């Protein structure tokens, strides 16, 4: 009989939404990605491309443009006509300002970072001044006949190129008047009935304007004379995005066929000083339209309708050629969307606008290790809970006993009581939730389902006691020393005494739930935490970081455990450190305190602390040795990390149900 019964759940129909805009910030090496459902995600490219922050989406927000301004401020504009500024500390929206020009199609921040331009549906280009706490409308430029679909500033800040339908205008910033109007051919050397839409423009410092349009052309214009210099036909379909590097020697364009082209400025002959733009590399990493591209100093970033975010480091720009220079494709979410109720064997799936509750199937058959057992009772879809209102669900949780469901959107918090009688399930909403609970980033129930822990995006932690049909607010832990650091991850110990909470930078705080006081703080590490869990009997806090380091901290002793120190001294196996996806869940074996179970998107691993640690020379992914090998060899090859890659692409939680034999 195998040790675990593994339920392979394949009925979680998670469909991510397509990527619409991408904006790269050079100073902090961060990438802001906005999706078609309104979600904005922030990826930290230096922390192993981990998604550290996100802003939940909204049905009415159809973002069309995203840009960074001076001082790490993020702005977005969309088809509802509003410019939205995001608060990156408190993880909420600071304000939304209507530009009064109709739907906004494009937005660009000035090279100095203090001004913002918005191109609107009515053909006007509006200039805003960025003040320390808000933005202020300054003036309108000359109004054009059709909608302004793309904008670009000249690096000196004196001119602007605006792409519209069938023409490109060049404006002078000081006077606000259009200097040139450059008409674009509808088709490459031909006529066409379909209008030519200029999807992207880029203004270089020598006065060249590069435009990409829906006929598949990349054109170079001279802004001083307003004439076409060079014409490249790159695709049969639209070329939808363009991004230029800071040194202006290369740029990247994305097409509707899924191809990304890299253009570089190379000298005409090997020792001449004259340079020209040449299309150097095509990349086909996408299957659908590439609607957004960005150019960082060392990599090309692209995202589109097929929901993958692809980061392709450029070989000639990367200094150290190691595993970091490989292609990165971010497909799966970096946070947990599934919660589990151990007692009733229920799973709660979180989608953008609804929750689904499923009962796992059961089997009475037994078999050997590796067998597939037939189900005697199929998985059952018990509940489909739709959320009211246009906002997306931020987080959700089901209690271990299965009788409470809680979820939160940006403006409301919902708590439901479930009751099971015979074969029926009924739901009752607990009304009058307090206002401070809304916009929670993480919700967790205690093991005995008597307490609810909520981490809000203001940095405070709330403890609510759950009674039979109502609740009582017990305590709130305020954030330390005035900083508004939003707590993203929570973990509670099975005996209910300790609560661990981690923010994005400041280390992991451990609170004593009985005394309602802060117990200790794990020292801060420069990579964000991806998973947290507290072991049942030893009360060891296991922390996984985005650079694939795993730490074990003993809460009662307030120091790292021996095992953790040993593995830090020796270092992890190089293959372990080269994994792409972050560890999203850690769990424990009830009867074996030496085992830690963890998983990421592509593998499932059990760390046995009693076995020796692997060094770089041993095989990390070792399958079970054949039975007829001698004991000596088996002992030599066995090491602590037992990894299984059979269950690929796991988004699920791992939990240990009590074995009923």
């Amino acid at each position, binding site marked *: 009989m195998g040790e675990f019964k593994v339920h392979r759940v394949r009925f979680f129909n998670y469909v991510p939404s397509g990527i619409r805009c991408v904006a790269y910030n050079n100073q902090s090496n961060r990438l802001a990605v906005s999706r078609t459902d309104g979600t904005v995600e922030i990826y930290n490219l230096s922390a192993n491309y981990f998604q550290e922050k996100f802003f939940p989406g909204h*049905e009415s927000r159809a973002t069309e443009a995203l840009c960074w301004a001076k001082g790490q401020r993020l702005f977005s504009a969309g088809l509802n006509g509003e410019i939205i500024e995001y608060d990156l500390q408190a993880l909420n929206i600071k304000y939304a300002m209507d530009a009064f020009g109709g739907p906004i199609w494009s937005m660009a921040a000035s090279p100095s970072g203090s001004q913002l331009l918005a191109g609107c549906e009515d053909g006007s280009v509006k200039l805003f001044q960025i003040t320390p706490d808000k933005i202020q409308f300054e003036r309108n430029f000359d109004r054009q006949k059709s909608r302004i679909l793309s904008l670009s500033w000249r690096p000196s800040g004196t001119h602007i190129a605006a792409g519209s339908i069938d023409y490109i205008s060049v404006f002078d910033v000081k006077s606000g008047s259009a200097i040139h109007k450059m008409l674009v051919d509808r088709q490459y050397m031909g006529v066409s009935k379909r209008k030519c839409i200029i999807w992207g423009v880029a203004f270089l410092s020598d006065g060249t304007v590069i435009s990409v349009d829906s006929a598949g052309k990349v054109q170079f214009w001279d802004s001083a004379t307003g004439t076409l210099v060079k014409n490249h036909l790159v695709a049969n379909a639209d070329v939808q995005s363009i991004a230029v590097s800071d040194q202006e020697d290369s740029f990247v364009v994305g097409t509707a066929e899924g191809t990304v082209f890299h253009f570089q400025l190379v000298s005409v002959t090997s020792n001449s000083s004259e340079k020209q733009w040449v299309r150097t590399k095509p990349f086909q990493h996408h299957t659908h*339209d590439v609607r957004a591209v960005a150019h960082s100093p060392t990599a090309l970033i692209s995202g589109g309708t097929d929901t993958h975010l692809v980061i392709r480091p450029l070989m000639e720009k990367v200094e150290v050629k190691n595993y970091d220079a490989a292609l990165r494709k971010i497909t799966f979410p970096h946070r947990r969307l599934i919660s589990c109720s151990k007692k009733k064997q229920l799973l709660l799936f979180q989608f953008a606008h609804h929750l689904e509750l499923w009962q796992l199937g059961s089997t009475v058959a037994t078999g050997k290790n590796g067998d597939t057992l037939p189900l005697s009772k199929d998985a059952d879809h018990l509940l489909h809970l739709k959320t009211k209102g246009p906002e997306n669900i931020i987080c959700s949780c089901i209690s271990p006993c299965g009788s409470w469901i809680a979820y939160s959107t940006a403006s409301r918090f919902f708590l439901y009581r479930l009751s099971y009688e015979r074969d029926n399930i009924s739901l009752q909403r607990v009304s009058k939730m307090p206002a401070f609970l809304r916009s929670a980033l993480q919700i967790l129930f205690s093991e005995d389902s008597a307490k609810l822990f909520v981490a809000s995006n203001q940095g405070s932690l709330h403890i609510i006691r759950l009674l039979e049909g109502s609740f009582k607010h017990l305590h709130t832990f305020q954030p330390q020393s005035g900083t508004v650091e939003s707590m993203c991850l929570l973990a509670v110990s099975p005996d209910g005494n300790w609560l661990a909470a981690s923010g994005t930078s400041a280390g992991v705080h451990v609170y004593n739930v009985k005394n309602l006081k802060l117990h200790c703080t794990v020292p801060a590490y420069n990579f964000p935490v991806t998973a947290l869990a507290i072991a049942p009997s030893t009360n060891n806090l296991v922390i996984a970081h985005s650079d694939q380091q795993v730490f074990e901290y003993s809460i009662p002793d307030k120091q790292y455990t021996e095992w953790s120190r040993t593995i830090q001294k020796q270092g992890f196996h190089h293959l372990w450190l080269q994994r792409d996806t972050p560890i999203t869940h850690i769990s424990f074996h009830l009867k074996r305190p030496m085992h830690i179970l963890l998983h990421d998107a592509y593998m499932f691993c059990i760390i046995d602390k009693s076995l020796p640690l692997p060094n770089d020379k041993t095989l990390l992914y070792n399958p079970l040795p054949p039975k007829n090998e001698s004991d000596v060899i088996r002992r030599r090859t066995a090491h602590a990390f037992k990894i299984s890659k059979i269950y690929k692409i796991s988004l699920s939680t791992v939990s240990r149900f009590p074995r009923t034999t």
Partner: protein
Amino acid sequence: MVQLRPRVSRTPASASAMVDEGQPASEEEAEHGLLLGQPSSGAAAEPLQDDEEGDSEFDEDEAPEELTFASAQAEAREEERRVRETVRRDKALLKEKRKRREELFIEQKKRKLLPDTVLEKLTTAPQTTIKKSPGKLKEVILQKKNEECEKGSDSKKTKEKVQKVQSVGHNKSYLAVRLKDQDLRDSRQEAAKAFIQNCLYGPGTNRTTVNKFLSLDNKRLPVKKAAAQFLNNAWGTQRKQNAKRFKRRWMVRRMKTSKK
């Protein structure tokens, strides 16, 4: 007798001459005109010739029949009467249709107006004020009715919705609306979304569905395969609905029997 094919479109003059009663003398001329008044172009002349040939198949050798004046006159009169009848009938039908439509409109208008009792109450009690939004008049009526029905019970929802108002006067030339009550859809935003949809996925873009793409691939292989068929979720919707209804009824029955 040779059957005359009505050639109204080509010889309008002759047709009107036929209908016109005040020229009986020219009837025969008209008849002949119909025969002779064919355009000389070959294409038009041929079918008539064919027709004539087909008709006169049986009497090729015989001379054309004589037509008495009386019979021709009678026939012409018949034709003209028939035409008049049809025109009259058409006019009558149109009139009927218009009448019915008018009545329908009047009825709809009557239905749309608030019932008399509610109107009285509104005019006599100017304190209660409800903000109406265009197209949501019926909802407001329902709310008012609900309020009247549940006079004792406090339905908080309706009370919340009933907000500050303007008195409903007889001249409904303007309507004050709260912007928050409007749907989240804005017509400009809708137009913008339609524009993008048209640009990227509308006619003229070289896009196709996955089904067609894969099917074409299958058909272009050296060994042709069947077209790709994806799951059709719209299949058997009626059956599925019936099954759902039956399940619900069965559950209720089961609950009842188990309770007993």
